[in-house]
């Protein structure tokens, strides 16, 4: 039933403004991000729990891995800035500029994923698996490292795909500035999670 039909039926339609002063989709993404933060929190907590409970842990990351991690951080942070530039361009209705900045964000996201996979391939080459430790110590390092970083990597890959869809929709006029902003919030969250994953998974396991 639409508003005119309600009026005909003699009822008042009460349309209260959102107390948050933001669009529904933006509030929706915030609620999703809160639940996702709890998921990552639980994963990182499980890692801490297993690490405390294990008599030995090991430190598999040498300087090359840490340098790789720093480069990955720089790439992801840069992608957050290009995303911001994309959001600002969409607010200014600069369609060509939005396309350019979103493409840059997707490329940086893809570079991050490639660097991440290179790290994984290197660890797998050394014999690390989900349930195997080549140094003879507890296998939990592989389990926690691959699950936490795998969850984050899947978020990056999903983010790149979402950005591609949103950019395409924006270009075709199906999506507006609020869609870009919502996708941007998700992308910044992925960056935010990495700020905890990098020190806890890489730096705490450096030798």
């Amino acid at each position, binding site marked *: 039933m639409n508003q005119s039909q309600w009026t005909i039926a003699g009822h008042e339609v009460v349309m209260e403004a959102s107390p948050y002063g933001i669009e529904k989709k933006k509030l929706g993404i915030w609620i999703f991000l809160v639940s996702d933060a709890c998921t990552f929190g639980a994963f990182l907590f499980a890692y801490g729990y297993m690490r405390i409970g294990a008599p030995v842990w090991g430190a598999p990351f040498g300087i090359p891995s840490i340098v790789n991690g720093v480069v990955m*951080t720089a790439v992801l942070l840069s992608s957050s800035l290009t995303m911001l530039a994309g959001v600002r361009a969409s607010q200014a209705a600069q369609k060509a500029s939005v396309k350019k900045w979103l493409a840059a964000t997707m490329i940086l996201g893809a570079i991050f994923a490639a660097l991440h996979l290179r790290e994984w391939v290197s660890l797998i080459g050394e014999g690390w698996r989900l349930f195997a430790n080549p140094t003879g110590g507890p296998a939990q390092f592989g389990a926690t490292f691959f699950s936490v970083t795998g969850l984050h990597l899947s978020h990056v890959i999903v983010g790149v795909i979402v950005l591609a869809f949103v950019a395409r929709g924006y270009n075709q006029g199906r999506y507006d500035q609020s869609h870009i902003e919502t996708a941007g919030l998700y992308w*910044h969250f992925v960056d*935010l999670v990495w700020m905890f994953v990098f020190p806890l998974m890489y730096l705490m396991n450096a030798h």
Partner: protein
Amino acid sequence: MSSHRELTMGSYVGIGVGLMAIVGLEVIFTYQHLPPRTLLFALLCLACLEAYVAIMYLMHVKYERPILYWTIFPATLFVLLFLCYLFPDAFRMFNMRLMK
């Protein structure tokens, strides 16, 4: 979002550089051979600082109505902090292993 109060793109680049500097500080701390607990505390403090800056400026929470902040963050922090409630059990496991 009230965009008229927003920072310029140059300021955002400055924030990005600042966040990278914090990452650099984290790496420096890592190679100072600090005791694990001290290192963990330092890294978590720096990560929380980075997260605060990212949430406030990159995710624009600073420019939203305060009710958004007060609805979302205390509850999320409460959940995340209470996950730590089980950590003593991890120490118990560790001590049980040592007793064997």
